[in-house]
């Protein structure tokens, strides 16, 4: 790989301090230092990133501008004239989203005897779940307990979490791991069956379970396979474009077939939004680790229908996004690298933060190193970054550890002729996770009857900062819970609901009143990565 002279010189300094760093103990920050660091450097505390919402159930709350643009946008559907009289699908439970939460929900809903339809914008499995590398938490060891897990989650979330949701998360965790084990997820285990578990940022026990560093991939492939085996109906490339209500409760959804450009009507007794996250909005211009379809669609749908949002003013920036080579910009360097002993090092070769602080603190420390302290390394394309010294891992655990326990990472860098067992890598924070989302109860139901939400689209579980390994856990825990609850509710509803877009009429009227919408429409569905020159020349001939 090509390195500038500045980079090469700095790499030498990193090498020369390695021996010292191997035994160097850095303390955890005390609570005051932590708050000070966050408030000075974390993007959540930069005023200009946010604005107050002008409409909807969370009117007046601070939201990143990129989200607000979508929440204050119209639907392309005209609620007065849109024809809902032809029902294309009639189901008990409609699951919207084909990631981990959607798959878990569909499996559990079907197990309760419900007729299930799963619809998804891209392919079944195209989701942030499949990209999750590092692991899944669960307090299953002797020296650990769900209460200890609770405390870690709560402190990590800066004490803002919804206690009932945290309780559900930590108490279901062992059962969720057992369920996945039984379905045949290939967890890392010792020869006696003991799950291999390591630390993640902010864990007080080694509670991170993994399937090498394809943990989410292995879980997603297994759940998807099981859904196919059990004959669950799946419609791909057909996102929900709008929910259908009877004015108050949810009764179905309008699908948009992205390949034939037509709309379809689903009548459903209950609907589960499992549409995932929003990294592709690129809040404050950050790159992202998220998949192509992470555009906040479910948040928009739920919000218009009347579900309040929680903690939308907090975004998780993963501290270690790839910063070089540029082709990898923003992609995840799993926290497991630090869990295994990888060290964050500045241009002088010095560590500047204990590596297993929570993600918000780590991100803020890296930003401080690159901004105020000017101790970052500049890449050829002008980005600032710090080193993640991966060689420490091989020194600590033996040669070959990286290839063995971080195969995805190793391959990722090999593709660009970087051997991370022999060279440190460059990292900078990247938009990773939306800590907030639609408000839910522990069974997954939102404040709108018969509408459920699970996974990243839901908020409250992680407070203002999520810990590593609690997202994979969250999607399965709340996916399962929503699936069960939505199926049970559906069984009690005998007559099909009335299909209207009355909620949209109300929302459009509210927009008109405050003059908020301009010409924007939402949901976004796909991000735009074509050049402005191309878009300017585009003619509206074919869709």
């Amino acid at each position, binding site marked *: 790989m090509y390195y500038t002279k500045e980079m090469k010189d700095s790499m030498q300094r990193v090498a020369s301090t390695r021996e010292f760093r191997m035994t160097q103990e850095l303390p955890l920050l005390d609570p005051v230092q932590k708050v000070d660091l966050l408030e000075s450097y974390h993007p959540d505390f930069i005023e200009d990133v946010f604005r107050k919402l002008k409409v909807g159930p969370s009117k007046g709350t601070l939201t990143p501008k990129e989200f607000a643009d979508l929440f204050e946008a119209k639907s392309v559907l005209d609620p007065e004239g849109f024809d809902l009289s032809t029902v294309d699908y009639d189901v008990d439970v409609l699951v919207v989203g084909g990631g981990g939460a959607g798959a878990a929900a569909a499996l559990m809903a079907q197990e309760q005897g419900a007729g299930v339809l799963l619809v998804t914008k891209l392919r079944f499995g195209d989701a942030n779940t499949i990209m999750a590398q590092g692991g899944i938490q669960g307090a299953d060891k002797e020296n650990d307990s769900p209460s200890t897990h609770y405390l870690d989650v709560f402190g990590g979330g800066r004490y803002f979490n919804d206690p009932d949701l945290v309780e559900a998360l930590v108490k279901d965790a062992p059962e969720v791991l057992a369920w996945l084990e039984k379905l045949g997820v290939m967890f890392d285990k010792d020869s006696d069956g003991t799950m291999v578990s390591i630390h993640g940022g902010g864990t007080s026990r080694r509670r991170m379970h993994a399937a090498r560093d394809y943990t989410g991939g292995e879980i997603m492939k297994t759940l998807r396979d099981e859904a196919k085996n059990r004959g669950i109906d799946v419609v791909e490339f057909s996102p929900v474009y709008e929910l259908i209500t009877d004015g108050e409760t949810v009764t179905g959804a309008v699908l948009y077939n992205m390949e034939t450009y037509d709309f379809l009507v689903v009548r459903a007794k209950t609907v589960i939004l499992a549409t995932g996250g929003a990294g592709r909005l690129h809040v404050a211009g950050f790159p992202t680790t998220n998949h192509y379809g992470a555009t906040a669609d479910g948040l928009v749908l739920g919000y218009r229908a009347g579900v309040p949002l929680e903690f939308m003013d907090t975004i998780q920036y993963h501290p270690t996004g790839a910063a070089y080579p*540029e082709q990898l910009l923003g992609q995840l360097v799993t926290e497991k690298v630090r869990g295994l002993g990888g060290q964050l090092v500045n241009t002088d070769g010095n560590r500047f933060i204990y590596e297993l602080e929570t993600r918000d603190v780590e991100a803020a420390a890296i930003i401080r190193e690159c901004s105020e302290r000017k101790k970052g390394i500049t890449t050829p394309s002008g980005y600032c970054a710090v080193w993640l010294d991966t060689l420490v891992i091989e020194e600590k655990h033996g040669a070959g550890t990286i290839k063995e326990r971080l195969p995805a990472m190793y391959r990722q860098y090999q593709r660009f002729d970087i051997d991370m067992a022999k060279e440190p890598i460059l990292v900078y924070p990247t938009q990773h996770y939306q800590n907030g989302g639609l408000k839910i109860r522990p069974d997954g139901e939102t404040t709108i009857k018969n509408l459920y939400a699970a996974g990243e689209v839901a908020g409250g579980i992680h407070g203002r900062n999520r810990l590593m390994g609690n997202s994979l856990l969250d999607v399965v825990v709340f996916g399962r819970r929503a699936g069960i609850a939505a199926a049970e509710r559906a069984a009690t509803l005998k007559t099909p609901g009335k299909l209207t877009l009355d909620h949209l009429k109300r929302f459009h009227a509210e927009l008109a009143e405050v003059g908020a919408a301009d010409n924007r429409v939402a949901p976004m569905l796909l991000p735009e990565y074509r050049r402005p020159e191309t878009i300017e020349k585009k003619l509206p001939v074919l869709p």
Partner: protein
Amino acid sequence: MAEQMATIYVMGKAYEVPSDLTIMKAMEYAGYRFLRGCGCRGAFCGACGTVYRTQDDYRLKVGLACQEMVQDDMYLSEIPFFPGNKANYDVEDLKPKAEAVLAHYPEVYRCLACNTCTKACPQDIEVMEYIQAALRGDIAKAADLSFDCLMCGLCAARCPAEIVQYNVALLCRRLYSRHIAPEAKHLEARVKEVRDGKFDKEIASLKAMDQREIAKLYDARDIEPGD
């Protein structure tokens, strides 16, 4: 410094693109907006398997569009979907033997050991080796060797025996994990403890605490040493 440009042929059509882009970003530069053929953009989902050839070379090469750099005179096509056979089974009822694989995917018998699948793998997996392991009933080896599979489908697209390797691999991993790998006994024990309500009181008391109390507890918690 003027940008270095390359000519690429997307399904036969020429575009000038900067030469330091991946295939995916180069196609977006050229004006494509992906619907299919683009998923995670980070080599985890297998949506963007690509077949390409360079000028003066008859050989077909493979890569993931999100990872592979463009080259001058590159002729490429994404294969965003492959209609491979997927058997239905209940992993619970199966035994981790060759018979389980062959009953659901009898075409595995037809493997010619030509190694075309291995050459077609953008993840550099020893695909033929794991198919042969599955055929011998070495399910553990098949599971281990296939672990990094993204299910992009390029192997199956090239296989003269019409084996759908990635589905065989997933079956093997599920068989191995369910029936060969030893069970996590500590997990089973913990699930029972949770069901019996062992932690309910502790959690209820944590839930009842105000922020100051719980913060005090959090800041004082002992941290297990790392590995």
